[in-house]
């Protein structure tokens, strides 16, 4: 470390309010995960373009803190329930680090990852930590970790866009909407009605869904228990893009359909039930809000008897149902889930997830490719590797589509008490095979297991 600096800030207002629905969801998640909640931290890097001096960079950082109440918020449990507390003023301490032999952006990404390993004390800490990466005494990048209680990926993208403008010295209009405003809105009748409708949808699924994601009994897990297997595949992205255009469905639906198919096949069932992590920013007011708005939708897909094209169309339709019903008061949702649990003996386990982190639903820097056969030829370049491990993130299965612009990134977290790492690897490659083969022929659903080299794990039903 080469030094430190302090960024004092003074925003337009302070206050205390109940949590927004997005914050309530995340509040519960961080407490359920305990020491593993660092999984939920959000590392992020903001590059410093041009020859800006440290004072200009710290001024821009101060502007972000003053604009967005979420970045000045702590979260506390009170007898009346958890609250968000917005501070008007304060200061953020930042370390200054020389990049040395590393490229500054590379150093910033490494440092952001390191910052993310420490959990936040949500009641005392500002919800971000920052290190300025210097090169020859000049700031070149900012490495951050944010608490997921303060931001989601859409919020991070907003911060990136504002950062570029602030560094150029532009005056930005004040944000029109803050999480305290959202918390007030969510108490209104129209939002309560939407919440009630969403909860009715979830209840209709929970009344019927199997109690467990898998029928087979747990086995001795690996240590650490939860493994993330990652795949980088240009073929995956190219095939998803072409099938999306051919079948007039979104690339997210194509990927979701393939992930749900391999999950259903491995679980030995004809129905996949997954939670969809959803940005939830369909209300125009939330589009420019820095905060955590995302909630989970509940997606159900019955594998059709026909082909994979029909599966993608069904996935698109059912994802719409899931997204629409991803807007609810998590407290009311939890009460309903507990009521279902009392009736059915215990709460159904919904620990299978899908998250598409891409904003635009495309891969803008994908190499130009020729025929569909050329795409198939690229599968030899696909990389699959163990990306990370945690002791207790509480997922059975969690698919994530990553944000890389030049290749398809798909990762899968598995609970190794349920699925072995080689099964996770086979599931990822199975998704790729399903998409690539669908480019050149109709893939009947009856032949998916054989085509993808997967089978019901432990004997399904």
């Amino acid at each position, binding site marked *: 470390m080469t030094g430190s600096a302090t960024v004092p800030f003074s925003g337009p207002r302070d206050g205390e309010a109940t949590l927004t629905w997005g914050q309530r969801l995340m509040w519960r998640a961080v407490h359920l995960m305990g020491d593993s909640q660092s999984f939920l931290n959000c590392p992020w890097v903001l590059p410093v373009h041009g020859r800006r001096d440290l004072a200009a960079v710290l001024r821009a950082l101060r502007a972000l803190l003053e604009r967005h109440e979420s970045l000045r918020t702590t979260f506390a449990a009170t007898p009346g329930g958890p609250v968000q507390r917005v501070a008007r003023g304060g200061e953020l301490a930042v370390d200054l680090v020389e990049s040395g032999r590393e490229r500054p952006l590379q150093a910033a990404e490494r440092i952001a990852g390191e910052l993310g390993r420490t959990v936040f004390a949500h009641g005392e800490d500002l919800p971000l930590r920052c290190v300025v990466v210097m090169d020859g005494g000049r700031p070149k990048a900012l490495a951050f970790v944010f608490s997921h209680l303060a931001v989601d990926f859409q919020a991070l993208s907003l911060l990136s866009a504002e950062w570029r403008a602030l560094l150029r010295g532009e005056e930005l209009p004040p944000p029109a909407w803050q999480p305290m405003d959202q918390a007030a809105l969510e108490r209104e009748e129209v939002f309560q009605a939407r919440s009630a409708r969403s909860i009715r949808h979830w209840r209709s699924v929970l009344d019927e869904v199997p109690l467990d994601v898998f029928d087979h009994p747990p086995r001795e897990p690996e240590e650490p228990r939860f493994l993330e297997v990652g795949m980088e595949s240009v073929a995956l992205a190219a095939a998803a893009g072409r099938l999306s255009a051919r079948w007039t469905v*979104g690339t997210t639906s194509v990927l979701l359909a393939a992930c749900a198919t391999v999950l259903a096949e491995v679980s030995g069932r004809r129905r996949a039930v997954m939670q969809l992590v959803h940005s939830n920013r369909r209300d125009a007011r939330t589009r420019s809000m820095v905060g955590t708005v995302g909630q989970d939708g509940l997606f159900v897909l019955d594998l059709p008897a026909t082909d994979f094209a029909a599966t993608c169309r069904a996935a698109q339709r059912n994802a719409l149902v899931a997204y629409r019903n991803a807007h609810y008061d998590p407290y009311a949702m939890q009460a309903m889930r507990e009521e279902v649990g009392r009736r059915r003996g215990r709460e159904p386990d919904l620990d299978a997830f899908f998250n598409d982190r891409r904003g635009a639903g495309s891969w803008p820097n994908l190499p130009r490719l020729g025929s569909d056969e050329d795409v198939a030829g690229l599968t030899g370049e696909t990389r699959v590797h163990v990306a990370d491990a945690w002791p207790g993130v509480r997922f059975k299965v969690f698919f994530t589509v990553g944000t890389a612009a030049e290749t398809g990134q798909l990762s899968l977290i598995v609970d190794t008490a349920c699925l072995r790492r080689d099964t996770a690897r086979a599931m990822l490659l199975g998704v790729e095979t399903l998409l690539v083969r669908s480019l050149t022929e109709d893939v009947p659903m009856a032949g998916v297991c054989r085509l993808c080299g997967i089978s019901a794990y432990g004997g399904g039903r």
Partner: protein
Amino acid sequence: MTADAGRLERELADMIAGVSGGGISAEEVLAGEHPLSALGLTSLARIHLIDEIEDAYGVDIDLRGELPTFEHVGTLATALASLLEGDAA
């Protein structure tokens, strides 16, 4: 096309342009040369549009039906008109 049908299509095209955040113009929607997905109408925008249609016309749209998967404004307008007639009956 009747005047009412034309007006409904125009209103819906304006709504689609609004939920697309400026990515799609009402004229592109009305031209109908490309499916709305190809023009860039995302799932999120579709859900926002359905919220707006429900609020504006006082209808309840069943997402399991055909209506949410429309690719042309004419199909959407016909489905909505039928829903409105059903409510009036």
